[in-house]
């Protein structure tokens, strides 16, 4: 009796203490969440930051995809909400509104560099020289034929274009929780759709028709790139969509496709020749600056030459660096408190 009583009282006290302590204790570690594309870069910076600044804790970096991270970011202001959301796409106007409703008004955007999206197949598969229209024809539910929309008849890449290898069509693309998906749609599918010359229809119908994918050969991957890679291993004819840095680290098992005749490399993306690239960024909660120690220093450190610059730590890890001028403007805008404004959709 005594034992049970004593332990349960002890348990309740601990629980109560825990609760009050949590409320009273102020968080002194930067908390980050979001894009799985940015995650490796942010984690590296977090560790280097912890090593370079002895007075600050090492920031904690979570994943959850760009959308998941921004949703957490917009939950409100306070120590039990995250300070920084990593994103591989720009914040949408709707998200800015949701943020404002929860009291998150001071949002600052920092672009850290660029990333390419590559199409890759298993190393022992055929060579692909893709054009956006090929991708569109491979994954659309309906394609135009003689001025009319018909159910997609293609089952083999060589049926779409004779220059493509004789290989069954199967695609593993990122699901909509990934920022990569938006870039994939905007930079590949929509241009491909335009090139396919759909019959006359209004703009909304056009977009719906362009982005309506068939489900039998297209697999949407909600997890990270390793899951996409597992698909390629299970079904060797699958083509997967990856980030350039992931491909770069797995060159022994993957072979990359050229898009519009350009091979994705750090140079071709930095020069803007490769069509499917996007900026990577993170969003900082202005209200947390000065409350959570180290936020300003983290941003400055992230964009410093040794980290995000050419030849810096992140370039080694596969990030395509932005110019020095661009980075210094980003930092000074951040320090001046310039707020993010979503572009109208």
């Amino acid at each position: 009796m005594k034992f049970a009583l004593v332990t349960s009282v002890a348990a309740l006290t601990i629980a109560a203490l825990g609760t009050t302590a949590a409320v009273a204790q102020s968080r002194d570690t930067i908390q980050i969440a979001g894009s799985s594309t940015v995650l490796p870069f942010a984690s590296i910076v977090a560790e280097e930051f912890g090593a370079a600044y002895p007075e600050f804790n090492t920031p904690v970096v979570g994943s959850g995809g760009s959308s998941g991270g921004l949703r957490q970011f917009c939950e409100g202001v306070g120590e039990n909400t995250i300070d920084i959301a990593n994103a591989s796409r720009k914040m949408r106007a709707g998200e800015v509104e949701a943020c404002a409703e929860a009291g998150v008004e001071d949002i600052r955007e920092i672009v850290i560099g660029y990333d390419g999206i590559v199409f890759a197949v298993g190393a022992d598969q055929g060579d692909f020289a893709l054009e956006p229209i090929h991708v569109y024809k491979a994954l659309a539910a309906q394609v135009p034929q003689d001025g009319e929309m018909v159910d997609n008849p293609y089952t083999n890449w060589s049926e779409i274009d004779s220059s493509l290898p004789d290989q069954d069509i199967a695609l593993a693309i990122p699901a909509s929780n990934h920022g990569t998906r938006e870039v994939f749609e905007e930079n590949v599918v929509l241009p491909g759709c335009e090139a396919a010359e759909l019959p006359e229809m209004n703009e909304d119908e056009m977009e719906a028709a362009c982005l309506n994918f068939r489900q039998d050969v297209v697999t949407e991957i909600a997890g990270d790139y390793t899951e996409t890679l597992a698909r390629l291993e299970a079904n060797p004819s699958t083509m997967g969509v990856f980030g350039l840095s992931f491909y770069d680290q797995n060159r022994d098992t993957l072979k990359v496709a050229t898009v519009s005749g350009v091979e994705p490399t750090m140079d071709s993306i930095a020069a803007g020749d490769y069509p499917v690239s996007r900026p990577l960024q993170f969003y900082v909660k202005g209200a947390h600056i000065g409350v959570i120690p180290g936020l300003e220093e983290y941003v400055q450190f992230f964009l410093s030459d040794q980290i995000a610059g050419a030849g810096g730590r992140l370039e080694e890890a596969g990030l395509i660096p932005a110019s020095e001028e661009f980075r210094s403007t980003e930092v000074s805008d951040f320090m001046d408190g310039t707020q993010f404004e979503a572009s109208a959709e």
Partner: protein
Amino acid sequence: MTDINMQQTGSEASRKRLEIIRASLSRRHRAEAIFKGLGIAAIVLALALVGTLFWQVFSKGTPSLFQSTLHLDITFDPEVVEVGPAPEAGSGLSPAEYEEAYLDWRRALALVNWNELIANAIRDVSGTEIDGGDVRALVDNNAGLVLRSRFQDNPDLLGQTVPMDLLVSANGDNWLKGTIDRDLPDERQQLSADTRNLLDELRADDVITMDFAWHLFTNVDSRTAPASAGLAGAFMGSLYMMLIVIVLAVPIGVASAIYLEEFAPQNRITDLIEVNINNLAAVPSIVFGLLGAAVFINYFHLPISAPLVGGLVLTLMTLPTIIIATRAALKAVSPSLRQAALGLGASKTQMVFQHVLPVTFPSILTATIIGVAQALGETAPLLLIGMNAFVASVPASPLDQATALPVQVYLWQGNENRNFFEARTSAAIIVLLGLMLVLNAIAIFLRTRLERRG
């Protein structure tokens, strides 16, 4: 005559009866043999599957328990380590001034090019010219930090030469172990041909050896220095959570089971409670994660990614298991024990706590340990309360951000350097399985001991 006839018909009848019995007997034997065969087949299948799983995990994971390690004589060259002497406490400085000076000194240390020291040492041992970039490809990124913290702990090392063990980079380890096919052409390799040759040379000279990877247990997770990534942070996170589960779930669970079984009146309300407890035991764990995120984080404002919240969520998950097992144990106590106690004048409380409960200790203990082992392996609810974050420090308290062992398996499985982390993931699984085995062994040991005593 009639007698003989009757005898004859009698023996005829018993013969027929015997035949019938024989036939049914062989049918029953056959059925038994089939059942036995099926049983053995099921056990063999189960063993084969477990065997395959263990073989898979162990054959993949064992290589990463041994990692390529560089043994170098590092000279803390004063021309490279250009920092002033470390400030000394009490030498005319106020504590605040000392703190400030010490921080400045550490900042200066952070700026030293430690890789140059490593480059010098490699040059000495191999005679190959090598620059900072090559060092980064060859040695794990964390090597500079190892040198720095060694120097920070002992500033007298300036100008001295000390033997140090440094980890080879993840890609270097891949090359030496052949994880990436060594015959692949240059453009599909991660390292340049020069670096690969240098690695082979150092390996042949025994400057690089395959050492047991102790850092797997003492280091925290790392992205910038994948070769030095370890499980210490995840282990502490899991430990805190298990402590919280034990401290909360056991007393609450046992107390509610005792009340429901021994004291509560049998009516609709208690029936309803019982049904709900049984239902709760069958609720998928991810639902508890959603509940935890909504209640503990959003309503009570507990910190995200903290083992405290993880522990509370897992407590909720473990409670029904403990309640059900304790109630079953209490039910199994023979009524004569209760009646004897009551007959001798014990009160109901005395009867329960002095006579019934001690008998059930072994079962309760087993249920607790099995419940805790289950909670230890639980991943899904932790993903929803932010415990899948990348944490590069050991949590000092249950309120600090942390991961857990099964989540670490999940994180490593998703790492982009797959060639390296595939083996590392299996190593983490081995550690997790080992921990489970230990827990179950403790459960069996305690049960047999307590049962013998009782």
